């Protein structure tokens, strides 16, 4: 009978070797995880890569996927170019073009076809490009051309533009609303034409606020009013409340708009009566700005409200036998991380689930965050933290799965069927490529740079495909959920 004493084990070569390997892993394992390399496979769980397009090496922001006739077209907004490549080459024209909007046919998601690039504003990084996209069919808009398909996009920070993309390979500019600053992620109701445009109007004391427009006839925009938090309006004094990031409207049927203020600081969720906002007194006085507000929730000042996604009424599994309030009105808030490698100046940014059943008094009831230690993400390079969620209200994922981008931790699939207890059920971290741009921090005043994926925005389509785009120029990854995540969505097994 072979007996291993503790002493024998301690002295054995196998044990010494194992300890050595363990120490080496402890010392170098994280270091290996720190630096993704070209050729490394993607990291994934219950999500699978279906197709890819490099988006001409442009830093990507908001994708909108539109069912256009019998085709599926992705409209992808871009940040400006980089210091190294301010105007990437467009192989379709042979011209160097400032980053703008990529138009990609994703009808066959395994073989996306790049159709057109609409150049954007001159400038690099956040200073240029055309970050935002929304798309409405002319036949859906009350006064639209029924043969047209309209793309609403920003033009850098200076303007909003509307293009006719009925032929997505040959977009035509219809109108530009300019003279603005810091335009950003707007919302456009396709059934009414009412648009809530994130703009910067010079007289306001804030970079971003809301301009409400009637774009039911996109060729003839009609401004309805300006809106923001009291203290941001012209003529006010003292402390300036947190600036707007964006909003989502539930349209006339829901009659609510969920505004998110702040990106990574001082977040505010504001629930607004849509009808009162559109029809109420327009002068931006403090009283008039308060009049349509139903409820507000100040988040911890350490977090912002980048995306405020209304989940609507949900029966909470644990409350299903309750005779009162078993159904709750839920909102998902996603913060945006701005700082590279968990450096000073920012707390961890994540996802918050808000019970807004009593609209005047919303309250956070749960949160979700990626486990940093699961991937050593603070050392991988670039940002680590949440950024944005899918905004599609298509039934395939609504109130079942939410997808949230997490920069160097890729995109995360969250089971939200019980929003009081959200659970991660999948993730996909794309591989870096030669196009992936570096991200730097300062150490003793000098740049220390790493290359890592920076999954920036995500959107889904009615078919159940997931579109993830990269801020560090890697491109568009089209994904599908697999295994348990796919079962949650009710999609047929693949």
């Amino acid at each position, binding site marked *: 009978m072979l007996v291993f004493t503790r002493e024998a084990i301690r002295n054995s070569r196998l044990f010494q070797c194992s300890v050595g390997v363990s120490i080496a892993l402890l010392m170098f394992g994280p270091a290996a995880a720190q630096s993704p390399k070209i050729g490394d496979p993607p990291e994934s769980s219950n999500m699978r890569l279906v197709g890819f397009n490099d988006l001409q090496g442009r830093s990507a922001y908001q994708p909108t996927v539109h069912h256009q006739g019998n085709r599926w077209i992705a409209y992808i907004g871009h940040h400006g170019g980089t210091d190294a490549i301010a105007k990437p080459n467009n192989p379709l024209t042979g011209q160097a073009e400032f980053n703008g909007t990529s138009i990609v046919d994703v009808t066959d998601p395994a073989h996306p076809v790049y159709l057109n690039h609409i150049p954007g504003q001159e400038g690099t990084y956040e200073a240029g490009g055309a970050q935002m996209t929304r798309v409405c069919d002319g036949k859906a808009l009350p006064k639209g051309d029924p043969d047209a398909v309209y793309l609403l996009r920003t033009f850098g920070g200076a303007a909003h533009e509307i293009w006719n993309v009925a032929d997505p390979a040959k977009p035509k500019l219809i109108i530009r609303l300019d003279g603005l600053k810091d335009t950003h992620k707007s919302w456009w109701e396709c059934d009414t034409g009412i648009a809530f445009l994130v703009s910067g109007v010079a007289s306001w004391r804030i970079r971003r606020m809301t301009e409400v427009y009637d774009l039911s006839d996109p060729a003839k925009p009609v401004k309805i009013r300006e809106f923001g938090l009291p203290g941001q309006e012209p003529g006010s*004094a*003292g402390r300036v409340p947190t600036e707007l990031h964006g909003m989502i409207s539930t349209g006339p049927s829901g009659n609510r708009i969920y505004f998110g203020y702040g990106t990574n600081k001082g977040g505010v969720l504001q629930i607004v009566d849509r009808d009162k906002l559109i029809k109420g007194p327009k002068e931006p006085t403090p009283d008039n700005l308060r009049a349509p507000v139903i409820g507000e929730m100040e988040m911890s000042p350490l977090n912002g409200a980048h995306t405020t996604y209304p989940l609507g009424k949900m029966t909470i599994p644990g409350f299903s036998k309750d005779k009162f309030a078993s159904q709750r009105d839920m909102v998902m808030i996603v913060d945006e991380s701005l700082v590279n490698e968990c450096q*000073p100046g920012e707390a961890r940014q994540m996802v918050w689930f808000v019970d807004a059943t009593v609209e005047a008094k919303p309250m956070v009831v749960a949160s979700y965050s990626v486990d940093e230690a699961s991937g050593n993400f603070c050392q991988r390079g670039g940002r680590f933290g949440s950024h944005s969620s899918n905004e599609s209200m298509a039934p395939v994922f609504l109130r079942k799965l939410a997808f949230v981008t997490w920069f160097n931790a890729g995109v995360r699939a969250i089971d939200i069927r019980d929003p009081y207890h959200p659970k991660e059920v999948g993730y996909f971290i794309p591989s870096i490529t030669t196009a992936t741009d570096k991200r730097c921090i*300062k150490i003793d*005043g000098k740049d220390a740079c790493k290359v890592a994926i920076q999954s920036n925005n995500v959107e889904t389509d009615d078919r159940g495909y997931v579109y993830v785009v990269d801020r560090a120029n890697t491109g568009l990854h089209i994904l599908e959920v697999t295994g348990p995540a796919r079962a949650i969505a009710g999609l047929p097994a693949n």
Partner: protein
Amino acid sequence: MIRSATIAAAFGLGGIVASLFYFLAVPHGTDPVAGIAAHPVWVETKWPFLMDEWGEGKAFQCKAADCGVELNLYVRSKIGFCSSTTGVADDNELERLSDFDFMNGATAALGEGHEITVAWMKGRLRTYAAAGPARTRTTAISIVYNNNSDALIATVILNGRQLDGVEPVVIAFLNEKSMLLWLTNKVGL
């Protein structure tokens, strides 16, 4: 007549002597220019404010004996909250970034802001009337400058409105090597 002239002369001489004594011998707590120019001594103090979204910065005090009027200076960063292209372009941007909470919130601008420079960074300075904790006449100076998209905010609090000479002394301190090293080594600019 002679007596009257003598009295007048005595008063006059006394006045001159008194004036000379006043200007040469009495410490000038209300005239910051002389004191500040000679002895600006800044001592780091404990950060006095509660935690908020921007975290703690650095706090300094220059006593009245050194600066003519007691100056309390609070400096901290707001990472990623400035436009790297336009910087602190106007007073709206200055106010958006200012630490009004350090001024107890209530403020009224005392005139327009103006441009300043700290090392390689440009920014703006604006002065405000602020309500002090004891409802004294407190003045606040907000200095906001930027390094790309990162904003630096210096807030000076003092009692009264004796502002002559304060700005150059504060700007000189913000330009000191130790302050710039703090920005690069600790703040991460």
